[in-house]
C-alpha cells in the first residue's frame, strides 16, 4: 500500500532495477559515502494541500531513525552507532549525514515515504498517487486519487488515470479467484501456480508469468550447538558432505515441474537470477545426482545397507523437517524431498506446524532438526541480507547469534559481508558478494530448492499493465494504469 500512497525521493525502476529521480531531481553521495545531498522538486503539495519542502524530509528521517521505532526501513540505514544529522541549507535542498558509510545508500530511499512535518493530518497527508480514504483493519483499504499529485503525462493530464483503488485483504484464495473470474476484482498479485493454471485454462489472456522472482524456497539443518538434539545428529548436520549429499539427492527440476507446475526454477543460492546485478552468473543449481550423494556420504562413513542409510556408529539416518501448515506448496515439496531422500536410504518425517509454533522452534527453543521455509525478498541490495549471513545475527537461521563464528567459512562470509557493506565501489562490492555466494553454494547452510516465478492475473479491462518480477509486481506503474470504469479493485 505504501507504494501507492507514499511519495519517495528516489524510485527504483521495477523494470530496469535502476534508481531514478522522483521527489528529488538529483542527488549526490559524498563524505566517503556518509552524506547524501538531495535537490528537491519545487511547487509540490501533499494530498491535504500542505506544501512539500526539505523540512518534511528532515522530519521523516528524524522519525524513521528514532531508536524506539524499530522499523525495518530505519534499520537498513543504521550502519553504525550514532546520530543521523540533517542540514537544510535551502527549502529545496537537504543533506543527510549518517554515522558511517552505507553501501547502496541511494536505493534505500525507495522505501522512505516522505511525511509532512506541518500537516494536521500527519501521516495521512501523502505525496504519492493515492491517499487513504477509508480503512478497515484486516478487511480493506479504499484509496482515492491524490488531487495534488505532482506527476503529469505527456499530454499534460494529471496522473494517475484511475480515480480510486479498493484493496481487499482476501483470506481465501478460492474466493479471490472466483471474484476475478466474475470481474469483481481487476488483478491479483503473487498468484499461486495452481491458481495461475486455473486462470490460464479459463482465460489465458488474464494470466501473466513475469519470470523468476527474487523469492526462494529453502531448507536448512539445525546447527545450533546447545539445541536439544542428540550429538550424532548434530554431527551429521554440521558436516558439509552430509548437507551437500542431501542437496544432491533432491531433484529440484521435479520440484519446479510438479509442485509449481513449471512456474519456478531450480534455485542456485542466496541471490536469485532475477537480481540482475548481484546474482553470480558463474554458479549453477546443484545437479540431481544420487550416486554422487552416496559417494559423499560413504566418504563420511555412512553406509547404505538394505535400503537404510546408517552412520559410522550404526545410527539409522532419520530426521524430521518442519514447515508451516496450510502452505500446500511447502507440504508438497517436503513430500517430494521425502521421496528423493528415501532413494538414498534416508527417512524423512514431515511435521507441519502453524507459523507462530514454527517461529518459536527456529528462534527460541531450537527444538527441530530441519526446516523448510521461503524467503520473500523485496530488496535487490545484498545489504538487506546482512542479518541472515552475519554469524552474530539473530536471523542467521541455521545457527543464530554466534559470539564468534563457529566455522571458518562463516568467518569468511562475515568478512565478505562486512567488506561489501563498507565499500562504495559497486564493482568491488560485487566481487565480495560473488565470493559470498560461492561459499554459500559450496557449504550449503541453506539448501536452496527453487525460485518461484512472479505470477499474476489481470482482468482484460485493466490497461497498460506490464507485470514485473519485483514487488509490487502488477501495479508498479500505477500512474499509467487505466480501467474502463477507472476504478481498480485488487487483492
Amino acid at each position, binding site marked *: 500500500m505504501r507504494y501507492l500512497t507514499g511519495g519517495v525521493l528516489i524510485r527504483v525502476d521495477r523494470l530496469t532495477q535502476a534508481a531514478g529521480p522522483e521527489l528529488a531531481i538529483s542527488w549526490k553521495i559524498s563524505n566517503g559515502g556518509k552524506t547524501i545531498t538531495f535537490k528537491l522538486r519545487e511547487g509540490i503539495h501533499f494530498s491535504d494541500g500542505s506544501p512539500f519542502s526539505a523540512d518534511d524530509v528532515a522530519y521523516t528521517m528524524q522519525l524513521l531513525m528514532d531508536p524506539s521505532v524499530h522499523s525495518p526501513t530505519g*534499520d537498513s540505514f543504521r550502519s553504525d552507532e550514532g546520530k543521523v544529522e540533517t542540514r537544510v541549507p535551502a527549502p529545496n535542498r537537504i543533506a543527510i549525514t549518517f554515522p558511517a558509510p552505507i553501501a547502496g545508500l541511494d536505493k534505500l530511499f525507495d522505501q522512505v515515504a516522505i511525511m509532512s512535518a506541518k500537516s494536521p493530518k500527519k501521516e495521512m497527508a501523502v505525496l504519492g498517487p493515492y491517499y487513504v480514504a477509508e480503512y478497515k483493519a*484486516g478487511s480493506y483499504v479504499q484509496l482515492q486519487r491524490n488531487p495534488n499529485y505532482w506527476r503529469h503525462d505527456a499530454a499534460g493530464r494529471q496522473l494517475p488515470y484511475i480515480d480510486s483503488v479498493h484493496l481487499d485483504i482476501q483470506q481465501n484464495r478460492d474466493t479471490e479467484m472466483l471474484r476475478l473470474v466474475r470481474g469483481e476484482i481487476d488483478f491479483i498479485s503473487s498468484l499461486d501456480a495452481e491458481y495461475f493454471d486455473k486462470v490460464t485454462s479459463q482465460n489465458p489472456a488474464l494470466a501473466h508469468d513475469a519470470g523468476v522472482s527474487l523469492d526462494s524456497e529453502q531448507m536448512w539443518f539445525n546447527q545450533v550447538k546447545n539445541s536439544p538434539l542428540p550429538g550424532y545428529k548434530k554431527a551429521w548436520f554440521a558436516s558439509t558432505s552430509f548437507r551437500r549429499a542431501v542437496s544432491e539427492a533432491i531433484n529440484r527440476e521435479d520440484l519446479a515441474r510438479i509442485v509449481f507446475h513449471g512456474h519456478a526454477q531450480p534455485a542456485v543460492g542466496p541471490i536469485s537470477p532475477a537480481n540482475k546485478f548481484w546474482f553470480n552468473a558463474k554458479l549453477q543449481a546443484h545437479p540431481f545426482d544420487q550416486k554422487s550423494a552416496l559417494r559423499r556420504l560413504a566418504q563420511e562413513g555412512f553406509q547404505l545397507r538394505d535400503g537404510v542409510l546408517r552412520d559410522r556408529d550404526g545410527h539409522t539416518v532419520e530426521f524430521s523437517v518442519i514447515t508451516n501448515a496450510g502452505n500446500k506448496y511447502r507440504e508438497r515439496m517436503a513430500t517430494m524431498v521425502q521421496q528423493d531422500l528415501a532413494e538414498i536410504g534416508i527417512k524423512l518425517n514431515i511435521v507441519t506446524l502453524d507459523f507462530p509454533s514454527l517461529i518459536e522452534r527456529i528462534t527460541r527453543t531450537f527444538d527441530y532438526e530441519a526446516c523448510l521455509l521461503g524467503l520473500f525478498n523485496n530488496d535487490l541490495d545484498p545489504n538487506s541480507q546482512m542479518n541472515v549471513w552475519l554469524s552474530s545475527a539473530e536471523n542467521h537461521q541455521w545457527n543464530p547469534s554466534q559470539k564468534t563464528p563457529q566455522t571458518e567459512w562463516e568467518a569468511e562470509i562475515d568478512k565478505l559481508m562486512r567488506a561489501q557493506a563498507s565499500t562504495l565501489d559497486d564493482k568491488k562490492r560485487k566481487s565480495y558478494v560473488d565470493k559470498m555466494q560461492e561459499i554459500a553454494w559450496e557449504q550449503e547452510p541453506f539448501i536452496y530448492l527453487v525460485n518461484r516465478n512472479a505470477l499474476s492475473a489481470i482482468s482484460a479491462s485493466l490497461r497498460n499493465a506490464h507485470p514485473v518480477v519485483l514487488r509490487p509486481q502488477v501495479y508498479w506503474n500505477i500512474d499509467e494504469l487505466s480501467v474502463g470504469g477507472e476504478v481498480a479493485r485488487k487483492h
Partner: protein
Amino acid sequence: MKRAGVLQLGQHVGKIVLIVLLGGTLGAALVRFSPGFGVDERELDSRLNEQSIRALRQRQVEENNFAVFYVHYLGRLLRGDLGMSRTFERPVSELLKERFPETAKSVGLSLALAWTLGFSLAILAVMSRHWTIDLGASLLAGLLMCLPAAAMALLFVLARAPARLVLALVVLPQIFRYSRNLLARSAAQPHVLMAQAKGLNTLRIFFCHILLPVAPQVLALAGISVSLALTAAIPVEALCDLPGIGQLAWKAALARDLPLLVNLTMIVTLVTLLANSACDLLGQRFRGHAA
C-alpha cells in the same frame, strides 16, 4: 418480596460477571500456554537488526506472565480500556466497534430465518401427523447437520448467495430437531389426544396444550441457538471474508493475539450468558403461567 427479587437479580448479575471473568481467565491461560505464544512473524524480517528483534520480543514481556497480564487487563478494563491488539496495532475497542455490527447483523438475520423455518417445519411435522412431511423435514435437517459450516460457506460463495445465511443453515437443523421432539412429546400427552378426539379448536390445542407447556424448553433452545450462531460465525466469516467478530477471532487465534482473544472470549461468554439468562427469565414466567 420486591427486595427478594432485587437480591435474586443481583445474584444473577454477579454470577454472570463471575463466569465472564472466569471465561476470560481460561481464555488468557489457553492462549498464553499455546505453542508459538509470544513470537512475532516480523522477527524473520532480515532487514531488522538485533536491537529491533530484541525490542519486538520485549514488547510481549508483560503478556508472558498471564496472571500479571490479566490483573493489568482488568485494571484497564475498569477504566474502559480494552487494550491494544498486537496483530492490528489498534485499540481493541475500535476493532470491536468496527466489526460488531457485521456479526450482529449476520447472527440476527440468520437466527430470525432459522427460527422461522425450523420452528415452522417442526410445527408442520407434528401437527400434520403425516409421516412424509416428518420424514422429509427430518432428512433435510439431517443433511444440513452433516454438512460442515465451512463447506456450506464455500458453496454459498460459489453460488453467489449471501454467505451470512450459512449461519441460518447451521442453526436451523438444531432448532428443528429439538423443537420437533419437544412438540411431539407434548402433542402425545393423553389430555391433548383427548382434546383432539373431542374436536377442540386446533389452534387452541396447539397454543395452550402443546406449545405452552414446552415454552421454557423452547426458550432455552433460543438461548443456545445464539451461541451456536456465534460459534459458526468464526469459520464462516473467515472463509467468506466477512469483516466481523468471527474473522477477527480467527486472525487473533492464528497470531496468538492475547489482548484481542481475551476480549473476544469475554464478549462471546457475555452474549451467550445474557441470551440464556433472558430466555431463562422468560421461561420462568411461562412456567408460572403453565402452573
